[in-house]
Every structure is written in structure tokens, then in C-alpha cells.
């Protein structure tokens, strides 16, 4: 199906269609088992209550758990039961129930002790929860085969009943002014316990009163539109608020256990029981361990209760394809997926999304092997679309009417999909005024085409095609878009309007020049047609259009900047290449050294020349004073030259000038003395 779309897109599309429907009720499945294993996996032995919830849930679901968990739970239970008076009634209650679920071997003496302690609690208390824990604990002991008898059952029954309110709710104790629905469930469970522990018959009139209370309690039940019923507290801001799941679970535990111990039937409408079952199944996979226990425990009690056993109608598949001639399949099971008694399922009404009603009365055939009722939908002449199917369930055996509740009419939503016929597709360019198409090309929308058109701003682009359902009716998909994509990346999306069967769009470029930002050039054309019930939804490349638009005026809007990939800014930056000065070409070391030697040659020649000239130092002063000055003069010159070398090597100009100042004063002085002496001697020689 849907050749034009990538498979992933089709999957997503289907997921979007199916997701809201799949939250509707389905019986408890393996998904619940794995969810329960996961939820109770860690910290299941945190305290007695959680441990009980874990082992109880696992037992109901039949989950294989490791032996060590059972061992640990049993040890926890027996430790609590055998410890002397420190444990409260609540701990004893949970411990006894753990032991009851797992069948731990507890010494009979320990049970005697526990029983007497619980009975002592019952005698002293006036709190509903204390009653509940101690009666429940005693009941658990009795169910494990230990003999427990409440001798004053009537008075306990009265004490609990005294906490009830006129509207069927209960108070937690005599001092409390608040009445609670959760407490009502607790109280009913406790009363059921008292009845089953009693050695004698409890006053039937009291039982009748409690039955009446239950009916009143069911009068406060809340509901959703789809036939789901649930219990919630009247005041949600109350201190003991537990939430609808816990509250409903408490009531379910209460009325089912009470119904089990009393004779006669409780007068509760079957649809409310079914609504409760739908409520718990509608949770789907629970999010917390507490919700998981409440869901599974309540469903297990509803699965086998004496009031009404709810039968759930569910569809394995909510998407029916006309192409593959899918059959409409319906399963009717109990909440845990067990087979229902023989029954008939009739499809009485089909409600289309366009509020078209097809009334039929077709009985679904029963496939015994797969426990599925099925019906061919082809004779119904159902076209593609979304439908609400109304089923009516009737039990074949009239005796079952008192045991099972089916809720009568059930409504389910399905999507019927099929191949949509696409034909008479045409594309062309028309002159603006004449209206006659110059060039009309036929298109085959079943595959990508590569037409090439050209137009200027005085012309129009026409595109038209027809869609028809498999039954030849009008089909209006959710999405019919024509996309024009300019080569610079600017996109324009147009909705293709449809009337009756014909979809037609005329793009008058004269009016669109502004919108197209005066961008002339090549535009790629893409047509997408998509719908949830259209199996061949497609996205087709039609070809391209060379558009010649006028030059933009000064005030023309600039095309928007194309969205850059947001991840691009995290991409590695362009490497910065630093521009270094390229090192000058240096001569080889040997050449430089050779020329250093060459510069010495003239000096050697100078020295040789001096020797040839017969230079001597005879004129050097012989007297010690002038000789010293002459030496100092030469030393001074040498010092200045040395200072110059230091200046070249490391000193800066200021340091050099400082030293040079001192040296020059000295040099002028000694130089003057040395040279004036020489001058005087030469003058003497002349005059002499």
C-alpha cells in the first residue's frame, strides 16, 4: 500500500490511526504479566503490604517467579506472625494473607496466638480499619484450614454497621465526621469476613440492610460516556483521598466478597459491573505496583463473582482493509480472556463519520476453534472511512442471563481502509484572459512523472484530478497539497480544493507574484494526497515549471532565509588557518661562514700592508704619565667598542647611552691629555 510514501511514514500514519483506538478495552494479556514482573521486580519485599500485593498479583496472573522470592516472603510472614505482641493488627493481617497465598508452613500454635491477639483487638477497637485488619486476618487463618470462630459475630457486625452513612458510604471511626467510599469497600469486606467467621447465622434483616447500603453505594457510582463506571470519593480533597483506582478496587473487593457469603442476589445492574470491568481494563498497563495489584485483584474478583460476570466485547483488529477483504472479527471473553458461554453477536448498526446510519441486523458467525465471531463486511457495502459499529450480544442459554452481564449494546470504532482510484489527472498552462488551455498534459499519478512546463506571470497553472472510493463514491482526503519548490529552497504549499469528485486548483501567477517573492526560475511540483483510510496515499513529484516573473520592485518583500539545519551550529567550526610570515630564504651555513672568513681577508691585507710600510709604535709616549694616559685612551676606545658589542647582543639603547655617557666623559679627558701631549711633543720637534 501507499507506494508514494516511505514505509516508515506509512507505519507512523497507521500508528497514529490505531493508537487512540487501541486504548479501548482488551482482556488481560501477557503484557500485563510482564508489566507486573517489572513493577514488582525491585523492592517487592519492602514491607508486608507490598509483599502481599506482589505475591498475590503473581499468583492471579500465574507468573512464574523464582523460589527465593517465595522463601523470603514466607520468612517475612512467619517472623511477623511469631514475634510477640509488637506487631500491629495490620502487620498480622498482611502476614497472614502472604502465608495464605504462598501456603507457608506456619506452626498451629503460632496461629492460635495470632488469633487470640486479633480477637483482643476486635474487642477493644471502634476503628473501621482495625476491624478490617483483624477480621481479615482471622478470615485468612480460617481459609488456611485453621479453626477460627467468632462467638459474638452479631455485635461485631453491629459495631461495623454503626459506622455506615445513609448514602451507603462509611466512616473510618465513630469520631470521624467524614464518610468515604473507600471505607465503604473496607467495611463491606470486613462484614463479609464477620459473616463467614460467624458460628451462627447473622441476623438476616441486618444482611438485608447492608444489601440495601450496597445498592445505595452503587447509586453514587460515576461514569464516562463510553459505558465505563468507577468509584471515587465525593470530596477529592479529603485527607484520606486514594484516587479512583484504589477506591473502585476497594468497593469491588467489598461487594464481591459480601455477595459471596450471603444468600440471595445483590440488586446491582449488570451494566455497572461491566462498566467497572471496563474501567479496570481501560487502565491498560498500570504505571505503579499499587495500581497493578488493584487492577489485577479487582479483575480477578469480577471474573468470578456471584453478582454478574462481565463479558467483554473486543476487536482484535480495528483497521479493516477492503483491498485484502478483511473480515470483521469480534471476541467476547471474560476479563481474563476465557471463553464466554454460547452467545450470539449481532451487528445492529453501522454509524459512518458523516452520520450516515446503516441499519442491519447481521449475526456474526462463530469460529469455535479461535473463539472468534466473524462477519464479511463486503455485503454491507461499507465504504472507506471511520465507523462506529454497534453490536448486540445475546446469550443463548437464558439461565446465563443471571450469571453474565454483556451490557447489551456495545459500540466499537473501526477504520475501513481501501484503495482510492485516482484518474483523469491533467495539468496545463492557460492564458489569463482567454481561459483556453494551450497545453494540457495527461498525468499518471500512479508513478512519478517528469513533465516540464513554462509560464510567465500572465498565465495560470491548472491541475485537476479525480478521486473515487472502491465503491465509486466521493472521497475527500485529509490532505491534498500541491507544493511548489523553488530551486533556492523557497517552498509554497497550496491546498487543492475539491468539489464532489473533482479536485482542481488554478494558480493565477499574476496574483501570486508577490507571494513568490518575484523569484523566477525552476519550480519543482509535488502533489501529496493522504488520508488515514486511503491505502495508496501518495507523494508524487510531477515535474518542474519554469516560471518567468517580472523584476522585483524596490519595496518587494525579500524571500525568507531558508531554515538552516539546527544541528549545523554544533558542527565543527571551520579551521582557522593563521597566516604566518614565511621565513626568508636563508643561505646555506657554509656560504655564510666562508664570507665571514672573506671579510677578514681585507683586514689581513691591511695588517700586511702596515708591516710593509714599516709602521712602528716609536711615537708612543715613553714617560710614564703620558704613557698611562695613552694606554687609558686606547682602553677607553676599546671599552666603548665593547659596550657597542654588548648593545648589539643584549643591552637596550637607554642602558647603553647611560654607560656611554660615563665612558665618553672619561674618554674625552684621557684623549685630550694623550693627544695634547703628542701635539706638544710634535710642536717641540718642529720648533727644535
Amino acid at each position, binding site marked *: 500500500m501507499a507506494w508514494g510514501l516511505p514505509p516508515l511514514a506509512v507505519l507512523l500514519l497507521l500508528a497514529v490511526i490505531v493508537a487512540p483506538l487501541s486504548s479501548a478495552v482488551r482482556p488481560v494479556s501477557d503484557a500485563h504479566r510482564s508489566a507486573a514482573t517489572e513493577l514488582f521486580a525491585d523492592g517487592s519485599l519492602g514491607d508486608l503490604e507490598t509483599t502481599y500485593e506482589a505475591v498475590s498479583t503473581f499468583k492471579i496472573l500465574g507468573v512464574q517467579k523464582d523460589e527465593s522470592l517465595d522463601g523470603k516472603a514466607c520468612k517475612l510472614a512467619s517472623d511477623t506472625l511469631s514475634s510477640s505482641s509488637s506487631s500491629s493488627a495490620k502487620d498480622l493481617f498482611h502476614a497472614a494473607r502472604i502465608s495464605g497465598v504462598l501456603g507457608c508452613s506456619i506452626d498451629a500454635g503460632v496461629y492460635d496466638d495470632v488469633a487470640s491477639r486479633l480477637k483482643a483487638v476486635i474487642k477493644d477497637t471502634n476503628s473501621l480499619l482495625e476491624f478490617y485488619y483483624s477480621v481479615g486476618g482471622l478470615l485468612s487463618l480460617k481459609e488456611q484450614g485453621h479453626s477460627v470462630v467468632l462467638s459474638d459475630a452479631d455485635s461485631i457486625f453491629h459495631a461495623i454497621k454503626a459506622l455506615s452513612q445513609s448514602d451507603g458510604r462509611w466512616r473510618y471511626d465513630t469520631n470521624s465526621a467524614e464518610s468515604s467510599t473507600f471505607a465503604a469497600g473496607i467495611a463491606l469486606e470486613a462484614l463479609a469476613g464477620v459473616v463467614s467467621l460467624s458460628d451462627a447465622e447473622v441476623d438476616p434483616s441486618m444482611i438485608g440492610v447492608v444489601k440495601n447500603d450496597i445498592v445505595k453505594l452503587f447509586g453514587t457510582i460515576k461514569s464516562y460516556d463510553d459505558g465505563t463506571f468507577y468509584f471515587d470519593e465525593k470530596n477529592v480533597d479529603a485527607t484520606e483521598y486514594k484516587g479512583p483506582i484504589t477506591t473502585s478496587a476497594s468497593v469491588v473487593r467489598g461487594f464481591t466478597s459480601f455477595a459471596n457469603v450471603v444468600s440471595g442476589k445483590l440488586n446491582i445492574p449488570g451494566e455497572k459491573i461491566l462498566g467497572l470491568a471496563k474501567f479496570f481494563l481501560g487502565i491498560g498497563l498500570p504505571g505503579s505496583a499499587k495500581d497493578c495489584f488493584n487492577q489485577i485483584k479487582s479483575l480477578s474478583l469480577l471474573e468470578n463473582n456471584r453478582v454478574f460476570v462481565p463479558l467483554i466485547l473486543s476487536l482484535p483488529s480495528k483497521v479493516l482493509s477492503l483491498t485484502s477483504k478483511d473480515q470483521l472479527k469480534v471476541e467476547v471473553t471474560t476479563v481474563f480472556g476465557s471463553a464466554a458461554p454460547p452467545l450470539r453477536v449481532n451487528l445492529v448498526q453501522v454509524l459512518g463519520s458523516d452520520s450516515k446510519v446503516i441499519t442491519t441486523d447481521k449475526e456474526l458467525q462463530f469460529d469455535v476453534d479461535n473463539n472468534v465471531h466473524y462477519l464479511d463486511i463486503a455485503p454491507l457495502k461499507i465504504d472507506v472511512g471511520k465507523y462506529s459499529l454497534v453490536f448486540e450480544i445475546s446469550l443463548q442459554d437464558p439461565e446465563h442471563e443471571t450469571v453474565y452481564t454483556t451490557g447489551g449494546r456495545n459500540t466499537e470504532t473501526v477504520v475501513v481502509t481501501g484503495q482510492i482510484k485516482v484518474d483523469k489527472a491533467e495539468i496545463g498552462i492557460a492564458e489569463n484572459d482567454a481561459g483556453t488551455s494551450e497545453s494540457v498534459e495527461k498525468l499518471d499519478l500512479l508513478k512519478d512523472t517528469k513533465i516540464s512546463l513554462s509560464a510567465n506571470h500572465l498565465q495560470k497553472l491548472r491541475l485537476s484530478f479525480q478521486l473515487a472510493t472502491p465503491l465509486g463514491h466521493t472521497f475527500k482526503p485529509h490532505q491534498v497539497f500541491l507544493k511548489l519548490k523553488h530551486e533556492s529552497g523557497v517552498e509554497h504549499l497550496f491546498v487543492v480544493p475539491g468539489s464532489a469528485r473533482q479536485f482542481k486548483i488554478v494558480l493565477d501567477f499574476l496574483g501570486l507574484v508577490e507571494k513568490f517573492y518575484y523569484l523566477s526560475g525552476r519550480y519543482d511540483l509535488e502533489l501529496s494526497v493522504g488520508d488515514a483510510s486511503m491505502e495508496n496515499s501518495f507523494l508524487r513529484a510531477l515535474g518542474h515549471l519554469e516560471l518567468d516573473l517580472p523584476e522585483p520592485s524596490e519595496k518587494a518583500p525579500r524571500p525568507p532565509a531558508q531554515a538552516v539545519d539546527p544541528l549545523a551550529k554544533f558542527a565543527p567550526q571551520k579551521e582557522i588557518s593563521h597566516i604566518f610570515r614565511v621565513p626568508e*630564504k636563508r643561505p646555506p651555513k657554509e656560504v*655564510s661562514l666562508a664570507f665571514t672568513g672573506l671579510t677578514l681577508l*681585507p683586514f689581513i*691585507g*691591511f695588517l700586511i700592508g702596515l708591516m710593509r710600510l714599516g709602521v712602528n709604535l716609536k711615537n708612543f709616549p715613553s714617560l710614564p704619565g703620558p704613557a698611562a694616559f695613552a694606554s687609558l685612551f686606547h682602553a677607553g676606545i676599546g671599552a666603548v667598542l665593547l659596550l*657597542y658589542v654588548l648593545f648589539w647582543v643584549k643591552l637596550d639603547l637607554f642602558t647603553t647611552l647611560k654607560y656611554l655617557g660615563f665612558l665618553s666623559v672619561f674618554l674625552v679627558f684621557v684623549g685630550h691629555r694623550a*693627544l*695634547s701631549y703628542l701635539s706638544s711633543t710634535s710642536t717641540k720637534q718642529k720648533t727644535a
Partner: protein
Amino acid sequence: MLIFFHSQFPISKRSEGSRFAKMPKAAADAKLLIQSLTKAYAATPTNLKIIDLYVLFAVATALVQVVYMGIVGSFPFNSFLSGVLSCIGTAVLAVCLRIQVNKDNKEFKDLPPERAFADFVLCNLVLHLVIMNFLG
């Protein structure tokens, strides 16, 4: 070439040169010219010869550096300039010294050679301070 600055080079010597002009070969002329020049230069005082030698030495050193630059290139140019100008500068100063020391130059008659030498030393020191600064 510095010798031509020598004011001592007399005009009277020209008569001696004209005597050789009659000779047919130019080579012989050149030979005679050089011989007469050498003879005339031999009469130069020794201290002036020392200065001439110094000038030759400085110019030759400068030439070596110029040749080096011609072979390997002018980088680093400031160092090349420093080296060459150091030589040329000191050669010019030596020429100045020679002019002042020469006894035949009447305008410097009152100037003692020691004073001239002191000027030469001072100018050289200043010149080389600048050269060192420029050498880099």
C-alpha cells in the same frame, strides 16, 4: 681612486706623462702611467699611506659584503646596510682625516693632526653607535 683626491698630485707631472704619449702601444702607455703613478705615490708620507691602506681595507670589506648580498640575497637587509655603511662611513671619515692631516692642504695648516685624529675617533664612535642600533 682616492689618490686622485691627493692635492699633492701635481700638475707639473703631466709633462712627464706626455713624454710617453708618443709611444705607439697603448699597453706601454698604461705601463708607463702606472710606473709614474707608483713613483709619485712613493713620495707620499707614511702616515698618509697608512690612512690610504685603511681606506682600501674598509672599501674591500664593503665589497665582500656586497658580493655576499649578490650571491645569497638581501635578507636581512638592515644587517647588510649596517655592514656596508659601517665600512663606507669609516672610509669617508678616513678620507676626511687624510685631507686634514695632509700638510699640502693649506686651509688645514693651523689644525693639528691630533685634533683631526680626535675628530676621527669621535665621529667613528658616533657612527658605530648608530650602526649598532641599526644592526638589529
